[in-house]
């Protein structure tokens, strides 16, 4: 598979999760193991741009796919706009959930642009606070940095709209 643009070839047993393959085999430790059961979002990565929980994915199922983790969001030394906004708006405290939040937010903005509905709006409308909270509900933050996270995402969504 390709991980953050680099081709990686590895032999894994079929029961190894994508999360463990990334962290333990490839040393890509951005995605975190929070619950290991799909309930927290700390392990969120992008598979061909689509956000998934790497803890419930078997690595073998993603053979040949393009995986992006938080390490792959910046271009060189330049932070991704969402990374910069998380810093500006204090979108983190301990930082454990942040790699998952960032990957999730990148894909969430793309889903919204593509017209994906949510439980808040059946038509993809403006990204209100309620809308962002619903669309980001798969990412928990034990430190409760939600206000900063929502502000950061709104900020980037507004920049994109300009």
């Amino acid at each position, binding site marked *: 598979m390709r991980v953050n643009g680099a081709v990686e070839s590895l032999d894994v047993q*079929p029961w190894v999760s994508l999360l463990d393959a990334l962290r333990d085999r490839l040393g890509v430790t951005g995605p975190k193991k929070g619950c290991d059961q*799909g309930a927290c979002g700390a392990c969120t990565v992008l598979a061909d741009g689509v956000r998934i*929980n790497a803890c419930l994915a078997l690595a073998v199922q993603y053979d040949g796919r393009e995986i992006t983790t938080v390490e792959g969001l910046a271009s060189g030394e330049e932070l991704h706009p969402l990374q910069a906004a998380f810093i500006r708006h204090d979108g983190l405290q301990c930082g454990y959930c942040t790699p998952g939040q960032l990957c999730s937010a990148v894909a969430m903005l793309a889903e919204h642009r593509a017209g994906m509905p949510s*439980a808040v709006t*059946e038509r993809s409308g403006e990204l209100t606070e309620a809308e962002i*909270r619903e669309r980001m*509900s798969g990412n928990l933050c034990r430190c409760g940095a939600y206000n900063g996270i929502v502000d950061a995402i709104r900020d980037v969504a507004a920049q994109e709209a300009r």
Partner: protein
Amino acid sequence: MKPFAYVKPADVAGAVRAVSGEPGAKFLGGGTNLVDLMREGVERPDTVVDVTGLPLDTIDELPGGGLRIGALVRNGTLTADERVRARYPVLSQALLAGASAQLRNMATVGGNLLQRTRCPYFYDHAAACNKREPGGGCDALGGLNRSHAVLGVSGSCIAAHPSDMCVALAALDAVIEVESVRGTRRIPMTGFHRLPGDTPEIETELAPDELVTAVELPSAPFAARSRYRKVRDRASYAFALVSVAAALEVRDGAVTAVRLALGGVGAKPWRAHEAERILLGGPAGEESFTRAAEAELAGADVRPGNAFKVHLARATVVATLRELNTGEGTA
């Protein structure tokens, strides 16, 4: 996780051959339920047959105005399909009410149909659970049963069926298309899941070697006016305590078509036939909505932890029908 062999067939024939005569084989869709249960040691397959390479990921028009949804269509894709949103909004809403965006991107329609209960004792090897170990007993009967079912339960198991999607499919009279080495057959959604009886480990009519290939939605013009309501402990990302899928057509104050199904309260996705019978042809209004809900719930078998669900279900049915009747908040 117990080690297993992994195969990824490229066509349906190869997939059904791979499980034929192999009782230890299991299909793998998005993995969001099976991988979790394998990690917990509740599921212990010898062979995992990954079906995500099969060409069953399209949504197609059926002659006569229905839709055929491939078993590998991802839950997220289904929520966004314009035809589903316009013709069967209850289905899109039910899916959007479940899990998280990440999980919906992974989960398949086939896997959602076959997902297993979230009864905490089912996951806990220290607890007695007839579903996990037949004959072992059921710790939920006298234990924590706030999340458990009140309709269709037995003395062996009171687990609630967890799926939101299935409640909408039960209301829409969906038909499940399945295939095995013996050929293809079609099972109505309302008869797809089984009540626990004294074999709670057998959850559906699907034989272990049968693959779900598609879900068919029959044409249902009145379903353009349909709604899914879910009540849960958190605003998002939690299973239903109670949910309602409903479609309602009213002409001159009388109910001319109605479909009603309940989630969170049933041992299986619960089609409310009795309530529909009372509503059809009668006046649309608070009194008849309440009477219908009460009749459906009359057979509820409650425990101390989940007795509240009867009132909550009645109120949610009435509120959903009222909303469809007055047009408030419908798309």
